[in-house]
């Protein structure tokens, strides 16, 4: 069929029926054996309740090593330690506030994704609203001034007729 032998490579790939069946049988066997091994996923911690609380807490805490990840998401060693520490504190029946205070005492407000309102964080909390208000006021004054600048020129008779024609209005 082909004059040159460049395509013999593809011909060689065409398996005969026997080979296809053998490969198929092999795959089935492989899959079957893995099915035998799989079982229910093992929970990460012994106590799912502790894990749930730990996750809820660490979602809002910053990993200091990989600063754009929460401690819950991060795989850094630092976060592993923090999770371990928090799990233990939960088991010791510490309240959420106590656990968060424990971290803030050591690492500062920076660990909190939800920082408290303090003199140092006022700009952080209210800066965006301030910017919005400034922007809104300047938009209003700009629009007002613009309206004052625009003079309404009524159409002349001829222009009105032309417009009516263009708009396909019937003569009244």
């Amino acid at each position: 069929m082909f004059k040159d032998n460049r395509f013999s490579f593809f011909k060689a790939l065409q398996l005969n029926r026997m080979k296809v069946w053998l490969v198929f049988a092999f795959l089935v066997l492989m899959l079957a054996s893995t099915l035998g091994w799989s079982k229910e996923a093992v929970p990460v911690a012994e106590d799912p309740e502790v894990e749930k609380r730990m996750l809820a807490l660490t979602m809002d805490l910053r990993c200091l090593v990989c600063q754009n990840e929460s401690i819950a998401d991060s795989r850094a060693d630092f976060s592993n330690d923090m999770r371990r520490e928090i799990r233990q504190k939960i088991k010791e029946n510490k309240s959420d506030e106590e656990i968060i205070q424990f971290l803030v005492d050591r690492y500062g407000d920076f660990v909190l994704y939800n920082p408290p309102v303090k003199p140092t964080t006022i700009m952080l909390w209210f800066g965006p609203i301030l910017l919005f208000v400034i922007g809104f006021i300047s938009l209003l004054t700009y629009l007002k001034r613009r309206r004052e600048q625009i003079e309404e020129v009524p159409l002349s008779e001829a222009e009105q007729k032309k417009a009516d024609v263009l708009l396909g209005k019937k003569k009244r």
Partner: protein
Amino acid sequence: MMRYLIPLFAFIVLAAFLLVGLTLNPRQVPSPLIDKPAPIFQLNHLHEPEKILSSTDNLGKVWLLNVWASWCVSCRDEHPLLVELAKSGIVSIYGLNYKDERTTAMQWLKRYGDPYAVSIVDADGKVGIDFGVYGVPETYIIDKKGIIRHKQIGPVTADSLEKTIVPLIIELQKQA
């Protein structure tokens, strides 16, 4: 005139903020422990595991606590400086061997020199957490009353030694 000046002014303000932002290092999180008492600890020595160093043992003198580990690459950068500082006799340096293996830690000290008056072992990193350690190496200056006066995050450099650490140590040593 004003309509050109206002955007220019806004641009200058924005540029100033960005310029300041460039000089800041987001990795250096200010520690809330500065000017607070150093955390209480009792840890075993690295070389003589039966001995214990406690946080109150160093009251009455200014000392450095250097957090290090054999797995920490940038600890190697600062290490010659620490060895030199220890030799100068200005201050005694204590090592907090952080989450390390005892034998490898000791080999590491043999290889690169041991500037530490004592190295203590924090195998699971719990005391490290109390000190707010998050990036090894870290160095703390602790005064005679056991209060943390300075924290160096990341390796000590010749510059930071000269400009901050040594002057502060000398000043603290003068205090009663």
